């Protein structure tokens, strides 16, 4: 009797979880669309910038490179060789030029 009751209870719980999961999937799609709309709004687009000062304040003292590139541009970082201090970044665009800005406080 207990096992049958447990079975019924579990089936009901799983049904609830299934509904919750579907709701989360729906909300995610909806929110992604909302973020896209917000970012594409012309006024928001005009004011969606960060100052060099803002960036320098986030990484005090470091050398900073800012990279703007068309969507889909590939950034590739080869696995560095153990023990060698050699690191590489390859940027490859198929649809437009890439802009790189060296930002430094000094």
């Amino acid at each position, binding site marked *: 009797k207990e096992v049958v009751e447990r079975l019924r209870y579990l089936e009901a719980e799983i049904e609830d979880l299934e509904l919750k999961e579907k709701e989360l999937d729906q909300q995610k799609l909806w929110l992604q669309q909302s973020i896209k709309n917000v970012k594409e709004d012309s006024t928001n687009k005009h004011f969606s910038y960060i100052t060099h000062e803002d960036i320098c304040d986030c990484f005090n003292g470091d050398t900073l490179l800012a990279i703007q*590139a*068309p*969507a*889909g*541009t*590939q*950034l*590739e*970082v*080869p*696995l*560095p*060789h*153990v*023990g*060698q*201090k050699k*690191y590489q970044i390859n940027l490859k665009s198929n649809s437009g030029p890439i802009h790189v800005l060296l930002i430094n406080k000094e």
Partner: protein
Amino acid sequence: TSLTPKTALLYKFNRSPSESLKEINNMIKQGGQR
């Protein structure tokens, strides 16, 4: 059969999740150690 070791990590602008960048940063931090 062991997979061929990854020789590079990739990130696509406006396509890849932020997680990919975290993975790259970890790889650089470990200096390529396995």
